[in-house]
């Protein structure tokens, strides 16, 4: 079991409240996923020359005492064009650079192999960690996050170990993330198709296969509906998948609708959760259009 939440605000004034509106949703999914939680939030994009990387130091020896300032100094010394800066909170930092992120990631892997790169892009910030949703939300101050849309997850692990890097959301490429409720039966088949193409996997988690498959299709030129249609053909097993891109949220469910999903839409927001009880406390919910997404259908909402 796992819990999924998603929220997209339609009115600019609500961007400041994105995190505050979401936290009760995430807490509402605690029973479905008490072992880890995570969140990807999409906000205003950096200009085309900049990238931000969400980094996690919880698996390094220093943990939450990680020397973020020293990392920035060393990176700028080795790569002056990066003009790197970091905004750090404990074991999490958002590193902003003014160069292509690939050499920066290579540098990070080389200099700090235990540092985990959670996400890369112009719009995405990503947080994930082990602990109850309440603990993780407090640790990273989710209530004060701002942005246009977000994708969240509460995990009850079934397919791989309970570790921060196996928590959701998973990311691949830039400004793309995916959360999953369910279990895939052919993740290794998908991996064996992708690895010869040079696609690297960070974990043994089944969800990562779905994430990397869809991102590969998008990068190869598919639009989101085409990539999702291919996912129906390629992915076997049980899944409700919620994905975030720089300007969209997308949801699909397997043909047997084995894993739940509910959507509530008002003039102010689109909210998605595994169960209605995670939506029950949203403002105006009594007048929302509440529906259950159909199996093997694509739902895409634009930010």
């Amino acid at each position, binding site marked *: 079991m796992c819990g999924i939440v998603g929220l997209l605000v339609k009115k600019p004034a609500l961007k400041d409240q994105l995190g505050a509106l979401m936290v009760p949703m995430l807490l509402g999914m605690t029973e479905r996923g008490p072992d880890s939680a995570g969140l990807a939030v999409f906000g205003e994009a950096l200009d085309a020359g900049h990238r931000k990387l969400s980094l996690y130091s919880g698996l390094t020896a220093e943990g939450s005492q990680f020397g973020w300032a020293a990392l920035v100094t060393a990176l700028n010394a080795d790569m002056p064009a990066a003009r790197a800066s970091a905004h750090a909170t404990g074991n999490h930092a958002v590193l902003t650079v003014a160069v292509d992120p690939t050499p920066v990631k290579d540098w990070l892997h080389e200099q700090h192999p235990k540092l985990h790169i959670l996400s890369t892009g112009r719009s995405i910030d990503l947080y994930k960690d082990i602990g109850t949703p309440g603990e993780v939300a407090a640790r990273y101050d989710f209530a004060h996050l701002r942005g246009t849309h977000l994708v969240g997850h509460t995990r009850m692990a079934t397919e791989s170990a309970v570790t921060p890097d196996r928590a959701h959301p998973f990311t691949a490429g830039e400004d793309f993330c995916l959360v999953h409720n369910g279990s895939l039966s052919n993740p290794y088949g998908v991996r064996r198709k992708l690895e010869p193409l040079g696609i690297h996997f960070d974990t043994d988690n089944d969800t990562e296969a779905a994430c990397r498959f869809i991102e590969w299709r998008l990068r190869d030129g598919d639009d989101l509906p085409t990539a999702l249609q291919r996912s129906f053909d390629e992915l076997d097993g049980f899944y409700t998948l919620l994905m975030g891109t720089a300007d969209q949220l997308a949801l699909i469910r397997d*043909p*047997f*609708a084995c894993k*739940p999903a509910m959507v509530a839409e008002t003039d102010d927001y689109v909210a998605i959760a595994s*169960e*209605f*009880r*995670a*939506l*029950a*406390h949203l403002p105006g919910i*009594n007048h929302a259009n*509440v*529906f*259950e997404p*159909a*199996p093997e259908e694509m739902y895409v909402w634009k930010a």
Partner: protein
Amino acid sequence: MEGVIEMTTFDLATQTVRELNQHLHQPAGELAGREVVVANPNGAHNLAVGLNAPVHVTVQGHAGYYAAGMNQLATVVIEGSAGTGVAENMMSGRVHVKGFASNAAGATAHGGLLVIEGDAGLRCGISLKGGDIVVGGSVGSFSAFMAQAGRMVICGDAADALGDSIYEAVLYVKGEIKSLGADAQIEPMTSADIATVAELLKSAGLKTAHDPAAFRRIASARTLYHWNADADQDY
């Protein structure tokens, strides 16, 4: 105070599902004829499960999983939608969902009437054992899978594999059937079938009127009842 129905309200914003259900599990004599209102259900699971008294329960909003499961004698009205497994294994009584219902609505129901005014999800009436189900909207795939007894009236459409491996339950569908499951077949409507549909629609009290003669009857071809050693066993 004869004639006045005693009403008790449980507000789940401040009270627990256990308090509600414990109240509803009092001896039948204590509850008979009473009315219980559940305010702020907020999608909670297991609302009004295991009732065994002619009590009337109104859920003022959306219910979570297994609402009114195992119901006997009681009438449970859900004013919003219902999650997975509403009225599962109902024995008698009536469960009425005014919104839509998620998967496995009325699964294994032995008796009673389940009314869903909106759509029902997948596997509605799976392994039905004698209960009646009336769906005002459409049903998802694999509905009435292995249904053994009872009746289903579907006013909208049916998705894939309707009535797969069905036994002696009978289904009536007004709209499109995307596909029938193995051993399910469309049969002619007799005057008795039309009377059955009319009776069930009347009991359901849907807001929209439907012509009972406009439904099609789906029942078992009974080709799976006996092992056929000559059949192609590849699958």
